[in-house]
């Protein structure tokens, strides 16, 4: 369970959960769990500093499943995306890079939520590291996708240029119907800076 990975913070988080009127946290839905996390991170969490001790706690996020979601790609979003990336408009086949967008929607959380999972405020300089998209078919504007998502790993790294950072890897599978083979899979790695780079 996610709340068990942050042992030193468990007492505080139990308070948050109780405040969220969830008497039995064993039955807490992932979405409610994440809401509680957001509440925590946006209030109490800001006073906490990332420490080496907690780095191992983040590693225990591996296997954490996001709530997941069923998402319909709005046709106007497909059009706006094509416009933003200077690609031709195509009403029948969505741009493959939209798999990333659908995947993010398919986690059932937004980017701020993912940042909050690792206690990173929006202006903390989170960066993309890597991404892999795999396709077994084309994406369609207006198409509906059933998505499931999970964290594969969180690794604490140190680089001369980047300083100390956490490397989050998570994957999202996009299916046209529940249980079918994924039409696309997105696996992303995000970089969470934890200290100033070494200028030397």
């Amino acid at each position, binding site marked *: 369970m996610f709340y068990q990975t942050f042992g030193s913070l468990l007492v505080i988080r139990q308070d948050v959960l109780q405040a969220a009127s969830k008497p039995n946290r064993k039955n807490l839905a992932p979405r409610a769990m994440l809401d509680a996390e957001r509440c925590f991170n946006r209030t109490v969490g800001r006073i906490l500093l990332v420490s080496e001790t907690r780095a191992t706690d983040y590693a225990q996020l591996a296997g954490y499943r996001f709530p997941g979601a069923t998402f319909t790609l709005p046709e106007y979003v497909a059009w706006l995306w094509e416009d933003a990336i200077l690609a031709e408009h195509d009403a029948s*086949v969505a*741009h*493959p890079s939209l798999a*990333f967008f659908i995947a993010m929607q398919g986690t059932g959380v937004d*980017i701020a939520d993912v940042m909050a999972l690792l206690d990173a405020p929006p202006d903390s300089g989170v960066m993309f590291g*890597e991404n*892999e998209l795999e*396709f077994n078919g084309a994406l369609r504007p207006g198409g509906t996708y059933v998505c499931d998502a999970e964290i594969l790993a969180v690794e604490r790294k140190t680089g001369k240029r980047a300083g100390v950072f956490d490397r989050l890897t998570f994957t999202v599978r996009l299916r046209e119907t529940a249980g079918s083979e994924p039409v696309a899979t997105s696996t992303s790695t995000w970089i969470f800076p934890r200290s100033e780079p070494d200028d030397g």
Partner: protein
Amino acid sequence: MADIAVGQQVQPLVIETVDAEKMKIVAAILQDPNPIHFDVSVVQRLGYGERPINQGPVNMAWLIECAVRFAGGRDRLRRSRVRFLGNVFAGERVVVSGSVTAVDPADGVAELTLEATADGRPVLTGTVLVTI
């Protein structure tokens, strides 16, 4: 697609000027609250310079678009793997280029190895598998 051979160059994709205004639209589309894409004061405070930073997925989209044009269709993309090497700033000129690095006639696929530069600086590398 016929006559695809290892070493064949891919027609480069050129973005003459990265538009800061489009970053704002993309931030709204992606629901991305990171202010480095629209608030110069935050970019400065974080030590990244004086101009907004383009969203990584857009840089990735340009690399994919280059492969899609080579392959002749969006539905020909089988897999893309990209690594983000650096930031792309508003006003920069982005060029995606590369070549065919493998061909598998039996599976009907070709692998492209691509690189994107911003004002000549490497910012993204990737391999893309396309149907031929």
